[in-house]
Every structure is written in C-alpha cells, then in structure tokens.
C-alpha cells in the first residue's frame, strides 16, 4: 500500500507522513522523483533513520523516533511548523484511519469510548490544512468491521477532507458521488470490496 501511495505523489511534493504505516511511504520514492518530508515537530527535509549508535535524542520525528536531516533541510519552531500545515503549504499528507465516510470525513483519533483518554496530536491541523489527504488503512478493523462507511460513528478528525483511500483491497477515491473504486488490488473482485464496505461503491471505470 505504501508503495502505491508513493507512486501517486508528484515530483517535488512537500509531504507529511503520519505515524505507523504512512511512515513506510518514505521507503518507496519512485526513481527520478524528489519528495521533501515535513515532520510537524520542526524539520523540513527529514531523512531516514540513522545508523545504530548515530542517534541524536534531539533529532526525532513526530512519532518520537530518531531520524536524520537531508542536505537542504531546515529546522523551525512549532509555530512556524504548523503555519506550513495550516497555511496550505504542505502538498500531501498520508494518515491512518479508524473510519472514512463516503463524503470524505475522517475519524482517526478516538473511539469515543467513555473511558478513553482523548489524544489528538496534529491530525486535525493536518486534515484542515494540507491540500491532499491520503489515507492508508486496512479495509476492515481487526474484528472485520468496515472502516469505509456511510457516516462515521467515531468522533471526527475533519469533515470532507480525504482525497483517496489506499486499503489492502482497493484504491478508492472520494468523489461528489461517493466512494469511487479507482483500482482493485491484484486478485480482488469488486464484489468482495463491496461486501467489506458499509457504503455504496462505484465500480472502477473502464479505461
């Protein structure tokens, strides 16, 4: 999935990768393209993890893992970092999801359970400010419940913000008509995807 996401990101994009599966996107930059990675804790031009023993505890990413800085990087404070996000300067962000609705609402921060401690981080700022919000997720939860739904039951992260979803079953666009399958995963039938989706799906268009 991460590789498919990377293939869709245009050359020269400024990209913010969420914690988890989205982080893997950095491993799949297509040949001939240059992406510049933004991490919201104050670094543009984030590079890969350092060699063991080369970590600087004060050079970390938003997931608090040790990273490096590429040539041409820059450091800045949180105010400036979220000015980049909120101000629409980041081209693409890649996030995980608990639920995505057919109009592009995203829920990815809280189950809304009574005893859950709310924890939002930077997700609401990212979805409100970044031009293209890509979601990478398993098509269903661990217990098999659909994550692509008519309407999110979990508390929202943002409304009408998701551009495209990359799941293990399909790549699905959010369109004014709802979920539009862009491409099925190899060996997956449209019907299978429909069964695991709790909203109408438009079949892939013929090319």
């Amino acid at each position: 999935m991460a590789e498919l996401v990377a293939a869709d990101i245009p050359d020269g994009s400024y990209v913010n990768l969420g914690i988890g599966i989205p982080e893997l996107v950095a491993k799949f930059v297509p040949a001939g393209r240059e992406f510049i990675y933004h991490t919201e804790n104050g670094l543009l031009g984030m590079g890969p993890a350092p060699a063991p023993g080369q970590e600087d505890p004060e050079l970390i990413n938003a997931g608090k893992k040790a990273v490096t800085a590429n040539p041409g990087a820059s450091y800045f404070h949180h105010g400036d970092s979220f000015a980049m996000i909120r101000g629409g300067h980041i081209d693409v962000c890649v996030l995980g999801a608990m639920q995505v609705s057919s109009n592009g609402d995203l829920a990815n921060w809280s189950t809304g359970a009574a005893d859950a401690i709310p924890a939002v981080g930077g997700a609401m700022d990212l979805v409100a400010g970044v031009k293209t919000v890509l979601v990478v997720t398993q098509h269903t939860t661990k217990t098999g419940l659909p994550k692509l739904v008519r309407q999110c039951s979990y508390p929202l992260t943002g409304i009408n913000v998701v551009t495209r979803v990359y799941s293990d079953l399909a790549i699905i666009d959010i369109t004014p008509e709802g979920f539009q399958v862009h491409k099925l995963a190899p060996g997956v039938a449209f019907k299978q995807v429909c069964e695991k989706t709790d909203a109408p799906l438009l079949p892939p268009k013929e090319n």
Partner: protein
Amino acid sequence: MIDKRVATPAAAVADIYDGASVMIGGFGEAGSPIELIHALIDLGAKDLVVINNNTGNGESGLAALIGNGQVKKMICSYPRSSHSRVFPELYHAGKIELEIVPQGTLAERIRAGGAGIPAFYTASTIGTPLAEGKEIRNIDGRDYVMEYALKADFALIKCENADRLGNLVYNKTARNFNPVMCMAATTSIVQARKIVEVDGIDPEHVITPGIFVDRLVEVTVPLIESQLIAQGVRYP
C-alpha cells in the same frame, strides 16, 4: 549590566508558586528541560497548570512532576505515552484535569499569547467534538473556530547555547515549542547546555532574542530521558 544568569536550577525556579501556570518546552525528549522540572519537583509547588504537548515519559521529568501530584491540570495535544502510566492513572482516578488542544492550535495559541493577539480563527477542529461550544465564523465561505491566546506565569525551556542577555539557539528538533513558550510566559526560565560570551552567537542565528528570556542556568550535561527510561530511573 544585564546578566540573566543564576547559579542553579533550584535558584532559577524558586519563585514558582502554588497554582501557577507553567509552560514546559520539549517534544518527546527533544528540548525537554529535565533539570528545571526536577528542581520544580524539589520545590514542591502544587496545583500547577502545565502546558506541554504531552504528559511525559517514564518516571522522570514531566511524568515525575505529574506523578508527584503537583499538577492540577494538563493542557496538551496528546496525553498518551508508550512509556508512562502516570497520567492515565491520575486521569482515570479523577485527580487531574485535561484540556485537549490540537497540536497546531496549541502552538498558535501560545504564539498568539506572546505576540499580543488575544484571539484568532483557525479551520482546525471544524466539524469535530473539539469545536463544540466554541464560536464559529464563516470567512470567505469557509468555517473557522475562534481560539484564544494562551499565556503562562512561567516557562521552563531547554536550549543549546545562550548568552547573558538571554539570546538562545537550540539543537535540531529540540527547538519545537521552546521559542513560542519563551514569548508567552511572564517569566521564562532557561537551561542552556552552554552559556557563551555575549558575542558568541551570530545575530543572524539567534532563534530566541533575549527580550523573551528572564533567567538562565547552565546545565552542561543534561539528563537524557530515553536513557533514564532504559535505566528505570525514577525521580526523585
């Protein structure tokens, strides 16, 4: 002569009082002023309102301050941690209040507090539970929520180099919330790995101008949170 240096972390935090609001810089262990936090634990001031992106890790630094029962309320974006049970236990026991603020709104509210902007509008949280009860305004066809500035009585800050006037530079992503918190606190207290001569920082490279800094203490070899966690260190 202006000289903002004080001798020890204890002297630097000595006037933090019960009920004070305290911004604490750092994101994860980067830029976390552990020695100043430990001095605040030694001091024992309680009923504090603490502003930080998280709630600390392990059993030292911010997690220890919370664990020591000195914090009445946390204002943060992400109170979860993979290395600390301190906050969740107090929270579930109803012993600590929580105000959850998206990370970018938190940073901007602090920056606004320092910049004399009492309130501003942002699209973050529109349509979510965090916008509930807040004023919404439509500007040029899009909805925005009004957010108020955030100020504090004190800020605890970690930097790399400083001079006696309070000019600061940071190390890499240790910059994070530290510069905006320096701006937004009535009294900004800074621990520097090194205090250099007054011409030791190029004026072009200063990140926090001295006007935002009140006190400086040199901590040459600061504790490293991940090492404390690995060693199972518990403060005090």
